[in-house]
């Protein structure tokens, strides 16, 4: 939503650093999908797609696409050795049962206690829920990628969400074009600032209270 390519790439690149070898990872649509491009080659990550692929690989060579091997967004993928296919109920069993280690999702708002709103703006056209509720509530770790502020310049990191929730108390980490913020029991902790933004700018654009990590890392 109105974010420059540079910001999107930067957010995706930073999020990729949270992906560890051996993890089962589900990436949402949008910037989260881009995260896969920055995961180091050779890191053994099991990508889960909610349309029934465990072990999804990268995009196929042009010309060798298989219409019956696509990701949840409808675009062709490949599979890695050891991959499996399943029906939608099993794909969500994996999520609900807590077997997905990490999900990376987009957001409309996140609150200081980690509530996530990412599916409906009352009065506006609704695309639907998709798999977001299960992923947000049941993945072991939830990372939220988004613009720090909305189109009107208002903070998307709120004291409390105004929009209907996707799941309460689910977000663990928020990555924006300005900052990396951890959701802790004591509230939000500003860990990293993306240069050239400053700590003061991040605080000014964040409605929720921020505690400051010591030291705060500055990301070039």
């Amino acid at each position, binding site marked *: 939503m109105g974010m420059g390519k540079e910001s999107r790439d930067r957010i995706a690149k930073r999020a990729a650093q949270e992906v560890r070898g051996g993890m089962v990872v589900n990436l949402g649509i949008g910037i989260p999908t881009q995260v896969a491009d920055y995961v180091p080659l050779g890191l053994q990550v099991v990508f889960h797609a909610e349309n029934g692929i465990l072990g999804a690989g990268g995009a196929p060579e*042009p010309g060798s696409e298989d219409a019956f091997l696509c990701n949840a967004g*409808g675009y062709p993928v490949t599979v890695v050795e050891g991959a499996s296919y399943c029906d939608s109920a099993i794909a969500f069993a994996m999520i609900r049962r807590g077997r997905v280690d990490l999900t990376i999702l987009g957001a409309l708002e996140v609150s200081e206690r980690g509530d996530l709103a990412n599916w409906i703006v009352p009065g506006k056209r609704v695309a639907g829920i998709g798999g977001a509720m299960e992923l947000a509530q049941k993945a072991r770790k939830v990372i939220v990628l988004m613009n720090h502020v909305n189109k009107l310049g208002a903070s998307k990191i709120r004291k409390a969400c105004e929009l209907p929730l996707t799941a309460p108390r689910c977000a663990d980490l928020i990555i924006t074009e300005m900052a990396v913020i951890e959701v802790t029991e004591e509230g939000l902790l500003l860990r990293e600032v993306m240069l050239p933004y400053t700590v003061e700018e991040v605080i000014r654009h964040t409605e929720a209270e921020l505690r400051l990590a010591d030291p705060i890392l500055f990301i070039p």
Partner: protein
Amino acid sequence: MHASLPSKVSTLEEALSRINDGCTLMYGGFGGIGNPPTLIDGLLAKGVKDLTIIGNDTGFPHIGIGRLVTAGRVKKVIASHIGSNPFAGQKMEDGSMEVEFFPQGTLAEKIRAGGVGLGGIVLDVGVGTMMAEGRQTVVLNGTTYIVEPALTADVAIVHASKADPYGNLVYDKSGRNMNPLVAMAGQLTIAEADEIVPLGDLDPESIVTPGIFVDIVIPSKGVNWSWVWEKKAVTE
């Protein structure tokens, strides 16, 4: 004595004669992939209308089940997502089509429950959100769960890569998605298969949907739409 299983192989015409105005139609597929193309084509040609359709999503405007939505044949949708079909959003807004959303995994499990003869499911996904509003809850082992009734349909239409005459089905990679669940939840289940193989050709160990759930098998003419990624390749 030699016993063999009955054949359910039939024609598109016979299959279409069982799907009529106002019926509740469940369909397999995810983003168009795994929607049965020949049955959808047939329904468009027959002019069936006022359908209540139940499935993962409403495809794309010119792909899969989305074509029935675009053509205005649908009165109500029960799905998890309609975002890839702008006509669905438009019809929802102007009130010409009702849409009921469920979280994707909840929808899949409601359909599965209908298919396996359960009255419903209990789950904690959506507790603390709008999904819990106005819904019955139950406390089991100290956790609050939402009670969701099972879903079934008058007719279920599925796409398989291979079927045998008894209706045993195997699917094609990510084209499996909702198909095996939907196949169990129809009062009448029609499977369209890319290939109908002789009885005994499918390895019993590899069959995903046992033929007991399938009533009619018809041959597929294959997908007759362009996929979004194909269009993209052309326009770029």
